[in-house]
């Protein structure tokens, strides 16, 4: 990765079925993520995705850009706007990134832009990733060669 490099946009479709599956997987059964009535009662425009689900999609983009599932060492977001998920069809979440800095030989700091319907849904989204991919060098988690 190069400093200032623009990372390719990743697009994710989010359906009500995804929210049901994520509620089960994460044990977050807040009804604003599955009930139109409850969402309306608390003033939301409709059923919204779990904020952590949107963060997880941004995490997928990071892993995709790094090319390694264990590359993310620091990841932070602010939840700025909800992702409204229609009863039929899907909401579309777009994730782009810019390499803000290369603080070490195998590290990149990335600023993410996460939007839905043209509006930013996650703010201050940034991550630090290891760019030493696969089995190059030492396993940064153990300090020993890969496979030991």
């Amino acid at each position, binding site marked *: 990765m190069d400093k200032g490099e623009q990372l390719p946009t990743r697009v*994710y479709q989010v359906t009500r079925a*995804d929210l049901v*599956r*994520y509620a*089960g*997987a*994460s*044990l*977050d059964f807040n009804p604003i993520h599955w009930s139109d009535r409850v969402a309306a009662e608390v003033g939301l425009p409709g059923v919204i995705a779990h*904020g*952590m*689900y949107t*963060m*997880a*999609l941004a*995490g*997928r983009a*990071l*892993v995709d850009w790094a090319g*390694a*599932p*264990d590359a*993310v*060492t*620091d*990841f*932070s*977001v*602010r*939840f700025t706007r909800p992702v409204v998920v229609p009863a039929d069809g899907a909401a579309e979440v777009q994730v782009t990134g810019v390499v803000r800095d290369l603080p070490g030989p195998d590290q990149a700091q990335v600023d993410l832009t996460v939007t839905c319907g043209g509006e930013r849904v996650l703010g*201050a989204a940034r991550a630090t990733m290891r760019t030493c991919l*696969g*089995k190059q060098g030492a*396993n940064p*988690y*153990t300090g020993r060669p*890969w*496979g*030991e």
Partner: protein
Amino acid sequence: MALDPGIVGRQYPPTEPYEVGREKIREFATAIGADDPAYHDAEAARALGHADVIAPPTFPILMSFRASFAQIVDDPDLGVDYSRVVHGDQRFAYTRPVQAGDRLVCRCVVDEATSRGGHDILTIRTEVATDLDEPVVTVWSKLVVRGH
């Protein structure tokens, strides 16, 4: 009801260990659409130097959310109205990925308790370590308790 700033620094007792299972990691990874083999297959994870299937970057929310809500949001001294809680910020800082077989203990601390614009802001830092006190990940959740 404004948060008492005196609660900053309050530490909560360690939780009972959460036993990270392969099937739960697979379920979570599937729910967010993360199909990297290391999130599903132990051999793929071992090829990267890990002991077992590893979890995607936002997985620790399962443990930290449960701990922070059960201990802090439900702390009668804080008087937090759960129905008014909105998730503001979230951050994960890793020592290593969470992996299947981990027995993880959460230790929560109140890092911030302020009021701004009629809302209370509560930042909870959760240190997630194995039951042998090996650090794994630090998690911060900023919760906004909306004012009336």
